[in-house]
């Protein structure tokens, strides 16, 4: 086994008998120990992992394989409820949810025989995009330990990028799957709102949250999506949601590059993106997005109000257990009024229409995933193109758009900067057309492989 093997490669190794689930799990446990400086994991139980792997091997030897992913290790962000591992949201203000329960996605993966490997480090309660606020300390970027991973699913991204596990789970409210995936040089996917079950994934903001997979290839992302999609009686937003059905895309994808005030990016990221777009350029147009600050305010209003509402009980009983920054976010949400929230929801309605118009008859919208590469630990501000913004804001810079409009979004690595830090490209598809977005991304990925260095 090589570090960084994809799920697909590990599937083949299991099928042809060159590896057992037990030996794959043993390697992943060793890699986790070798890379302990990443601080990617909050809970990892060797005995539990090996017990699951042994059971998978027994099924295989009895011709009882449950699925392609039977016996493969998958790491889980610490805001997914898991029956075996405790769920802490990486906060000293501990979740009030029942223990001993699996989130729907975990339940689906376990039925398919996946090995639930470990729980991963995250930004406290997912309320932040840097992974620098966590009860177990910061997560470090595998490409350079002095840089952040981005967040809030930073531990999941670090574990996959370092090759410890072939795939991991994250959740995304303003980019929390895509941001660390981009900063660590892997693939990450946020489904359309209402297609993937959120049951058992601790909420940050009910109407913005989406669970999603992170992996080393688009094919691996697609392999995992059936375990996220479809109706779940325990999450009413998925009522009548379609199951995942693979889609073929033929021809040259038609892309819209979004630009405008508030969508600036560093020159190095910009030139890499332009180089990428030139390779696929026959069908690329540019469109401007106006009033970004109002739309951003709408996203922030909804986020803060919903998070404060969800945390109201913990805030009244354990306020001192939240980190200072997270508590300040939650207190801000309490001060916003119902009228302001409804105005934000009106603006959100306009934004959904606007994004649909910008997409027009194109296949997807394109932006860099981040305006900068992974920042250095302890640097609170980022400067690019006459902008000076907090590191936190630079992380969500482009990503919140997809959550406010509920669109399916994918980040793919398209190269790296002069310091070897990854640059990611984000694609946003039409609402509900997640399969088409994956199919388009597969086409573009062929080009991406040419510019990756």
């Amino acid at each position, binding site marked *: 086994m090589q570090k960084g093997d994809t799920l697909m490669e590990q599937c083949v190794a299991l099928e042809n008998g060159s590896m057992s689930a037990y030996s794959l799990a043993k390697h992943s446990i060793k890699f986790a120990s070798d890379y302990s400086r990443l601080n990617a994991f909050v809970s990892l139980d060797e005995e539990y992992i090996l017990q699951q792997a042994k059971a998978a091997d027994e099924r295989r030897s009895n011709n009882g394989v449950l699925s392609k992913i039977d016996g493969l290790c998958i790491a889980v962000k610490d805001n997914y409820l898991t029956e075996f591992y405790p769920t802490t949201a990486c906060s000293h203000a501990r979740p009030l949810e029942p223990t001993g329960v699996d989130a729907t996605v975990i339940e689906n993966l376990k039925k398919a025989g996946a090995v639930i490997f470990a729980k991963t480090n995250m930004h406290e309660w997912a309320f932040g995009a840097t992974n620098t606020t966590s009860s177990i300390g910061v997560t470090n970027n595998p490409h350079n330990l002095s840089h952040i991973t981005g967040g809030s699913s930073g531990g999941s991204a670090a574990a996959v990028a370092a090759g410890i596990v072939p795939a991991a789970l994250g959740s995304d409210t303003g980019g929390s799957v895509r941001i660390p995936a981009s900063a660590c040089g892997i693939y990450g996917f946020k489904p359309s709102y209402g297609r993937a079950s959120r049951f058992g994934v601790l909420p940050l903001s009910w109407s913005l949250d989406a669970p999603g997979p992170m992996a080393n290839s688009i094919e691996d992302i697609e392999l995992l999506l059936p375990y996220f999609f479809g109706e779940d009686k325990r999450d009413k937003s998925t009522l009548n949601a379609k199951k995942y059905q693979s889609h073929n895309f033929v021809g040259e994808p038609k892309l819209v590059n979004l630009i405008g005030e508030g969508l600036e990016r560093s020159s190095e990221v910009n030139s890499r993106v332009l180089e990428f777009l030139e390779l696929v350029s026959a069908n690329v147009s540019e469109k401007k997005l106006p009033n970004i600050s*109002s*739309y951003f*305010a709408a996203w922030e209003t909804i986020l803060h109000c919903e998070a404060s509402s969800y945390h109201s009980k913990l805030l009244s009983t354990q306020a001192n257990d939240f980190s200072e920054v997270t508590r300040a976010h939650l*207190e*801000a949400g309490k001060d*916003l009024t119902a009228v*302001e929230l409804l105005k934000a929801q009106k*603006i959100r309605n*306009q934004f959904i229409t606007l994004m649909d118009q910008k997409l027009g008859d194109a296949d997807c919208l394109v932006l860099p995933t981040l305006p900068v590469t992974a920042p250095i630990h302890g640097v609170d501000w980022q400067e690019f193109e006459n902008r000076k913004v907090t590191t936190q804001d630079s992380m969500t810079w482009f990503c919140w758009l997809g959550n406010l409009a509920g669109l399916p979004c994918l980040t793919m690595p398209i190269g790296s900067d002069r310091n070897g830090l990854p640059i990611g490209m984000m694609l946003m598809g039409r609402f*509900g057309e997640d399969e088409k977005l994956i199919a388009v991304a597969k086409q573009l990925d062929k080009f991406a492989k040419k510019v990756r260095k």
Partner: protein
Amino acid sequence: MTDSKPLNDDQKMRVEATLKRIRSGLKAAATFQFDEPVHVFIGEVKYRAKR
């Protein structure tokens, strides 16, 4: 249940800055009398999920 510590100066500054930014962004948006907010009613979600 423990008594909550009052917010310190840094936290107060963060709360103020967040609210100021949000309110200025909301104020700048043109919405009209008959615009409707996005709802999270099941009916709407059902419609959207089926599209």
